[in-house]
């Protein structure tokens, strides 16, 4: 029972307190001064906004279509990934992590540079897609291309865990490939797909950058736009913004319930030590087709934004356009002319990201174990609590963290130190590994655990010696996602960085703020390269450690 207690404690400290602080702020408009006066005074005035109904419906429509889009796009690729050779697969895995390294805000600007009137596309090929980009379809496409890797990674891991054994049995009995996929492999992988789809859904509901940049151009408002208005536009109304966050928490709750029901229908554990899906019988022609399919997705989703960022990073002036004379290293020179700022920013971000990846990975193991295996009272609540940071805007999480850790009575507090950024990243990133590890653990049969318990092991030993090694690939995959997302976390860094501390995001933001888009793009490119190489290196090491 110690473990359940540890999990509950971790989740409550890291996630529960800031979320509770936001809820308290929604109810008590003067909670920021620790006063409980005028309770409920803000609730009705904040909700009584005629724009809100439309914004909520549009947010739901957007999230639903992005979720559907990512699942339809990523599942076939996840399936193929589990069937191709490890070496090929690693290349695609590494490439598909890149969209995570690009902040959605920068990614949307990159797409805008390419597709808008007189954009890169028009300068090079003579036509533009501005009408498409600034439409519901365009917005959905950009967000889908950014988020599909989440579903891709968890479905490919799930298909790999299922292995080919079930398929082989079906084949012996005359099953056709398509029906084996539809009736055996897909249902087995569904819990993992649903679970990542849930993250995509809440991330889309919470996303601010892309709807702000692309949606505004065609008058498309979502809930987060309204929340953000209250957070940053005069007159600032933090309590009112907290009230609107409650809507998002409600939406996340409904989505979570729906997900639990759907996942429960397909909750089957598979035998461990599955045969890897073989690629042995695949012909060269088959391999080429698979390769071309992956390449075309990579070109659109990865090369598109990266090429755009690269071009603008090398453009000497923004207004100079895409010409050879306008290319040079001035933006990079400018980054490093800021003295040690840029290095400090990269160093801080990478350190925090690595710490966040390791710590969330460890915590996810413990929490997933309590939720899935111990199933003590309150685990469903813990499970729900763990997705909340993804459902509320980063700005709200930041306010919640300040409200929590700035209280005068803590003897020690991470606030106003770099420690608060780590707390923020842990809070924001925990959902990824928890989702991924929980699902993987659900699919593991308990036979190994039971064998260990009979031999006298306790829970720690079961986790350390049995589950952790089996779950290592999933934890690592989650760790890389956490690392990637943390290196470019924007909103909470801008709110929480202690005076004098720079992260990559604050550095990039500052350049945008002063109109130096190309310097910001150059810095983004550097970070994609640096953290991308770290991830590639990590994946390579992971490969060589395999028995």
């Amino acid at each position, binding site marked *: 029972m110690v473990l359940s207690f540890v999990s509950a404690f971790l989740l409550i400290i890291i996630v529960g307190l800031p979320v509770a602080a936001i809820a308290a702020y929604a109810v008590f408009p003067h909670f920021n001064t620790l006063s409980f006066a005028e309770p409920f005074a803000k609730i009705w005035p904040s909700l009584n906004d005629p724009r809100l109904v439309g914004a909520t419906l549009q947010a739901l429509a957007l999230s639903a279509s992005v979720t559907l889009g990512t699942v339809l796009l990523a599942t076939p690729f996840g399936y193929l990934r589990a069937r191709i050779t490890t070496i090929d697969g690693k290349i695609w895995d590494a490439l598909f992590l890149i969209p995570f390294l690009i902040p959605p805000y920068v990614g949307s600007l990159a797409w805008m540079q390419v597709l808008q009137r007189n954009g890169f596309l028009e300068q090079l090929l003579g036509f533009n897609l501005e009408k498409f980009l600034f439409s519901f379809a365009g917005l959905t496409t950009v967000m889908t291309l950014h988020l599909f890797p989440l579903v891709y990674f968890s479905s490919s891991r799930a298909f790999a865990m299922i292995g080919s054994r079930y398929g082989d049995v079906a084949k012996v009995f005359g099953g056709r490939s398509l029906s084996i996929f539809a009736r055996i492999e897909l249902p087995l992988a569904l819990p993992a797909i649903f679970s990542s789809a849930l993250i995509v859904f809440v991330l889309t509901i919470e996303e601010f950058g892309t709807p702000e940049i692309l949606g505004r151009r065609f008058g498309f408002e979502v809930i987060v736009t309204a929340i953000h208005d209250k957070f940053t536009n005069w007159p600032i109304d933090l309590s009112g913004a907290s009230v609107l966050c409650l809507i998002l928490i409600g939406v996340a709750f409904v989505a979570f319930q729906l997900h639990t029901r759907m996942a429960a229908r397909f909750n089957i554990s598979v035998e461990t030590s599955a045969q890897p899906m073989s690629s042995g019988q695949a012909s060269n022609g088959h391999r080429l087709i698979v390769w071309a399919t992956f390449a075309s997705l990579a070109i659109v989703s990865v090369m598109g934004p990266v090429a755009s960022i690269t071009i603008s990073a090398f453009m000497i002036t*923004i207004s100079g356009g895409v010409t050879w004379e306008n290319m040079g290293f001035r933006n990079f020179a400018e980054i490093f002319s800021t003295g040690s700022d840029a290095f400090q920013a990269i160093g801080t971000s990478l350190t925090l990201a690595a710490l966040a990846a390791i710590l969330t990975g460890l915590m996810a193991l413990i929490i997933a174990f309590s939720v899935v295996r111990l199933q003590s009272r309150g685990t469903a609540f813990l499970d729900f609590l763990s997705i909340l940071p993804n459902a509320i805007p980063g700005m709200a999480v930041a306010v919640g963290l300040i409200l929590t850790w700035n209280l005068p009575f803590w003897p020690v507090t991470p606030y106003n130190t770099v420690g608060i950024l780590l707390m923020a990243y842990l809070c924001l990133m925990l959902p990824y590994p928890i989702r991924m590890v929980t699902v993987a653990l659900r699919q593991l049969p308990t036979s190994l655990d039971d064998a260990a318990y009979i031999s006298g092991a306790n829970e720690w030993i079961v986790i350390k010696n049995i589950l952790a090694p089996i779950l290592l690939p999933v934890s690592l995959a989650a760790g890389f996602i956490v690392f990637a997302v943390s290196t470019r976390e924007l909103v909470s860094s801008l709110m929480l960085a202690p005076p004098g501390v720079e992260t990559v995001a604050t550095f990039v933001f500052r350049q945008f703020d002063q109109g130096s888009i190309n310097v910001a793009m150059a810095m983004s490119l550097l970070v994609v390269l640096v953290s991308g190489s770290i991830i590639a290196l990590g994946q390579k090491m992971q490969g060589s450690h395999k028995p």
Partner: protein
Amino acid sequence: MKKLLVALATGLTFCVSAQAAEPLIVYSAGPKPLSSALAKGFEAETGIAVELFQSSAGKIMARYQSEKANPHADMMISAAWSHAITLDAADELLAYTSPNAKKVPSALKTKTYVAQGAAALAIAYNTKSGLPLPHKWADLAKAAYQDQVTMPDPSSSGSALSLLQGLVTKDQKSTWAMFADLKSNGIIVPGANKAALTPVLQGSRGVVFGAVDYIVFGSKAKGESIDVIYPTDGTVLAPRPIMIMKSTPHAAAAKAFVDYILSDKGQALVASRFLLPARTDIKAKRPGYNDLSIIEFDQLKAAHSATATKQKFAKLMAQ
């Protein structure tokens, strides 16, 4: 587990080291090189260390509000005059009149806050766009500028709101008629100041209605094909308020910092970023007080009807 302990230990070290010194804590919006230079100059002159939290105007306000149970900021330098009006109305600002503020125009100072400098709202245009040069705000509603104009959104940009308020105060009827014409001429309102300027720099659109001039001058100095025109029918200033928080335990140091910002040296640093210095006797590196025809209006009065003005604008643009 070992890693966890190491991380926790690192976290604790951070906590302890932060409590060692007692510097002046300043929350600042706007160009970081300017705030850093001011902080360094002040430190060199007085020996008082300054710690900067640099972010956007909205975020420094949000952080200040969230911290109220245990305040940290001694001073704030915002990009939005309206933030100072709000905080002053809530009685959260310390009254101080710097001896160096004598040459600051009366519109840019009150008992509790004073401008560091100001930006003016102007028309910015891409010099490669081949468009005719506009002279008045209303020119941008002409056919020549169809689908070429962007404007920062008054609901996310404090300076755009000031411009709107100024124009409405000057001539309500013709201003709203002009915005209706601009709308039918294909104006886009893509977000805050940068979002409006970026498409013009990139050549996707040609002109910004209500650009923050010092940022455009900065881009121009870097070689961008962009320039500023001040419409002959007048423009509006967006001053940047310096505020001392009532909660500060370092009032003397804070007052000294205000004095420094308004000193010859401090104002020269402000001017070097192409901002209009608060003091009229300091030479600007851009059109100064005598070159601009400024629409004067009562900011306090305008603040009362700000919500209605913003809503009216949003409604017009949504049609």
